[in-house]
């Protein structure tokens, strides 16, 4: 929990990793900080996409009945206190995750399709190809207002060499975020690095020092741009394209610096929250710290779009402290062995419990006229339903948060067979004020998110 009590003057507690860290935050400053970004007094919509790998045990996930009278299933029990602020969505498909003639490799395809809805190209080489993911479609628009257009986070450092899954590049299962069909965005797993992305890496709590650092950064970027121009002379087209990537990146950083400099220096007083020391020793502490950072990032309006991979697709984390010493992916091929199914259900429920704690953090954080959760859409799910059989249809999905009044929870909605998952993304993005024509295989927005 980041903000445990609401209107204390400047000090509140951050419980991260055993020690309580004094955090002069932010409530008093929040209005001043976020004020320039509020449109007509309304809070901006924040979006997070939380991914769990290897599918879930569907019989313990999917509620039996639909509508508002549904009963939370065993796996969803930890979400009881949030029942009215979330939707359970059934029947959404990632048709393009299926082999469609490409043979094995369902884990790679699951990761690559989840937010893109595009059938990825089967390759282990440099010519990877998927689609732009929904979070990145959103970030290109709503990210214009924030220092960081989006954050890509993960909890599992498992980048492998060679191919990862039956002829697919590891890029497909390492991330769910793609800024272009050829550019997977690698997730950051170290909370320390996330903190540094959000707040800088040194003696930066002082606005004057921060402004000075920004000015120096700008001079250095001017310098490298001139260097790149000199290098570029006389190079062939391919080399120029490579340098072009570099210059584009330089320009992007310059724009961020300009945004930073435009902010009122008194309003961007940053917390003296200590930098996280690194990757915490347990999964639970790690995910908790990441949720704290996500909450701060949303609260301070440093970004409005975040993806978090709770596990890498096909990942093999073990969960000894809940009595599951088995590697997750290995276990997910349970062959209907009831011991294995029970253990998988434990993992699913453990993940859902983490989601519940994130929702509680957002609910407890004041934002404008309500809570952060009121102004968010938190999507949680997997791109496989039955992990044993690699099923890409009828995916387990939760949408939590109020979406600024446009998402009404408390229901289990089952969509008709063959509804693309990407239709949900079109609707979510619409709530955030982004109206792309299409995402992947979308056929139109889905209904019932708001009407009762």
């Amino acid at each position, binding site marked *: 929990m980041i903000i445990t009590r609401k209107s204390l003057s400047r000090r509140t507690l951050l419980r991260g990793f055993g020690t309580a860290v004094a955090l002069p935050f932010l409530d008093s400053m929040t209005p001043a900080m976020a004020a320039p970004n509020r449109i007509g007094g309304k809070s901006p919509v924040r979006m997070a996409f939380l991914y769990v790998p290897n599918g879930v045990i569907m019989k313990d996930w999917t509620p039996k009945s639909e509508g508002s009278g549904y009963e939370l299933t065993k796996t969803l029990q930890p979400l009881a206190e949030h029942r009215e602020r979330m939707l359970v969505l059934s029947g959404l498909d990632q048709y393009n995750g299926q082999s469609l*003639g490409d043979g094995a490799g369902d884990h790679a395809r699951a990761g690559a399709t989840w937010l893109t809805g595009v059938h990825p190209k089967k390759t282990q080489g440099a010519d990877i190809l998927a689609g732009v993911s929904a979070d990145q479609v959103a970030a290109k628009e709503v990210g214009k207002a924030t220092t960081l257009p989006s954050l890509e986070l993960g909890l599992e450092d498992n980048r492998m060499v*060679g191919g990862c899954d039956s*002829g697919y590049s590891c890029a497909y299962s390492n991330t769910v975020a793609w800024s272009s069909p050829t550019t997977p965005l690698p997730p950051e797993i170290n909370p320390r690095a996330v903190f540094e992305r959000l707040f800088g890496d040194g003696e930066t709590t002082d606005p004057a020092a921060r402004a000075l650092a920004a000015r*120096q950064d700008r001079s250095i970027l001017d310098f490298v741009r001139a260097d790149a121009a000199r290098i570029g002379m006389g190079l*062939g087209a391919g080399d120029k394209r*490579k340098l072009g990537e*570099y210059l584009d990146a330089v320009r992007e*950083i310059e724009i961020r610096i300009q945004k930073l400099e435009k902010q009122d220096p008194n309003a961007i007083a940053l917390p003296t929250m200590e930098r996280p020391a690194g990757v915490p020793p347990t999964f639970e502490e790690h995910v908790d710290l990441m949720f704290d950072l996500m909450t701060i990032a949303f609260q301070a309006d440093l970004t409005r779009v975040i993806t978090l991979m709770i596990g890498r697709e096909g990942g093999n984390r073990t969960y000894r402290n809940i009595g599951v010493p088995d*590697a997750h992916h290995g276990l997910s091929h349970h062959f209907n062995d009831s011991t294995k199914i029970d253990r998988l259900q434990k993992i699913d429920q453990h993940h859902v419990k983490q989601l519940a704690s994130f929702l509680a953090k957002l609910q407890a954080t004041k934002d404008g006229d309500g809570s952060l959760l009121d102004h968010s859409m938190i999507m949680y799910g997997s791109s496989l339903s039955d992990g044993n059989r690699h099923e890409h249809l009828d995916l387990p999905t939760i949408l939590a948060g109020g979406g600024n009044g446009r998402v009404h929870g408390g229901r289990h909605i089952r969509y008709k067979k063959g509804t693309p998952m990407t239709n949900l993304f079109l609707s979510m993005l619409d709530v955030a004020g982004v109206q792309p024509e299409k995402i992947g295989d979308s056929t139109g927005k889905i209904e019932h998110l708001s009407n009762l």
Partner: protein
Amino acid sequence: MIQKWIWGLATAATLLSQPAEPSAASAQQLLTTYCQGCHSESNRSGGVSVQGLKADAVSDSGMTWEKVLRKVRTGEMPPLGLPRPKPADSTAFVGWLEGELDRSAVAKRNPGTPLVHRLNRAEYSNAIRDLLSLRLDHAASLPADDSGYGFDNIGSVLTVSPLLMEKYMATARRVSRLAVGTVKSGAAIERFTPGKGPALDGSDDMPLNLRGGLLLNYHFPVDAEYTFLIRIRGNPVAKALPPKLDIRMDGKRFKLHEVVIDPNEEAQITRNIELRLPMKAGLHSIGAAFLTENLKVESGVVSRRGVGAAPPVNNVSVDYLQIGGPFNASGPGDTESRKTIFQCRPSAGQPETPCAQRILSTIARRAYRRPVTSADITPLMSLFALGRKDGGSFDAGIETALRAILVSPNFLFRVERDSASAPGATAHAVSDLELASRLSFFLWSSLPDEELLRLAEQKKLRATLPQQVRRMLADNKARSLVENFAGQWLHLRNIPTWRPDPDRFPQFDDALRSAMQRETEMLFEYIVRDDRSILDFLNADYSFLNERLARHYGIPNVKGTYFRKVAMNGEERGGILTHASILTVSSYPTRTSPVLRGKWILENILATPPPPPPPNVPDLEEKAANSAKDLRAALEKHRASAGCASCHSRLDPLGFALENFDAVGKFRAVEDGAVVDASGSLPGGIHFVGPSGLKKVLLERQDYFVECVSEKLLTYALGRGLEHFDLPVVRQIRREATAKDHRFSELVLAVVNSVPFQMRRSPER
């Protein structure tokens, strides 16, 4: 040099191809008779048509001819069951075709056009180390690089994103601050967990009888006080002696801390041990681990990590180490980095500019890997002035300019130029300076050192290439070949994150994990250092073991944690195919797979990777994997179908020969009550049993293996995927290495002397 190379190639090609028999005409005949039925313009089986190929003009369709060569040479084509040429005719055809292709490569040399090349993370780290005498682990601050063609140093794959640029900016800030030793650094805490960093076993900084701890090389930014928090965790046991934690700084015992535990208190305990110490700026090693002798219970049973049920000892270990600081900083200290950077100090009252200029010119020349001009230095001096003003000191000015050097495209990219007047699409030699960078990034994954740079500036590098290559291979920096080349070629980089099923392989622990990786690394290092034949990879009658690994292998009389060379005379072990590392990464976490192991061998030993499985193939193996017998039967049935047989008749037998090793590389004569059947038969009636049988078959085809290593090494050296026009070069490297007993240095020299390494092709204009 290039002339010499070409002459060498021409001679070799003439000698080896025996061109008189058969002629282009008989080759054309063979192609029409045996290939064109399926590979016609209308059928295009496998996407290949040989219709229209002209045997008297091989160079017109080099790409297709190379495919023909590979398939016929390995006997994959024509497929089993269809009419095949007589073996002698096949052999003659292969010899003729190879000769034709190699001859046309000489006539029409194409060294390829490598793209501008961003330094990858390993190269960046090494460059910082060599430029600023600063050893830092950038794994936490820079994202891992994507790989292609099996390696993560491929120019076309290494991109720059805004995120990466942001990380470069932040890393440059951190590096320059640490290197200069800026005193004002704010205090921060960093946490380290065991398992990363150098291995405890066999380090000179720690005694031998330690366990359950970590050893860390940490760069302290300034002279100051720092806090150390060591968290330990474990299960106390009644009657056990109190465990003793040995805390060491730079190899010297700082404190022997006795952990008093009341066995009744909890199921699992944690303790924090906190220290606050003054430290000198620079790199120090910090170690904390438990004395093994204190893990004995009174009965005298010694702990064995991770074997079987929990042993009756205080099973405690270091959970993590946290370093905080700096506090009460007293100054930048006298670090190696400062000595490297500050070659001069401005004298009081004198202008600072000349000294700043000298410092920045020296660093920029090394960082940019070429002589610098005023166009490079003038803007750096403006940044020096800016930093000088903002930070109020000479050092602060240098720090700001250093930051700029570290994000400059001159540092981050390797750029090679074609002269402006050169016509498009022609081959020309790269400059001496470009060659110096190619060499140093190939053999050291880093910047050229002073000697290379000086020779290149004086244009003397090409004249002294063999000496330079040998000098570089003897240098410690050549260890990068182990980490980056061998680590990726043999998939050793996957071992640290490999997780075998703990129920089936309870004996698999971190000690075994690191030992198996170390064994293969040490074999590679040994072959490099002692300049052994690369065939030792396949059939070494020695290996490198410590007690943990020897126990895994069932080899007696190897005691202690350090590794030593051990003779391997038995049938079971010897060569990488019997290394636990390779056997593990080519298995599933739960069980072995003959298909995966066969694929691993085809890809990494024989350089004839199978095509990916065709569409809609059900995962046969998974269902049949209940017992070894079922699996073998299912795979046999599988091979009975013609569509599957073309690949699986080559894949499966290779893997079956290794079935005596389980999914973590332990030898087994019996599996699930049945005697393991380790026999395999390749098409053409080649029958073999077990690892020694397999090795014999592979050694009979040693040219394939030598070409495989050549291909991997050339890909890594050039940082680009190989094209059909590179394959004659691969064969030439094989021939040169073979003529010199396959010695590793000769293979490297053959790569260095090759046309694509020495030259580049200007882009189309």
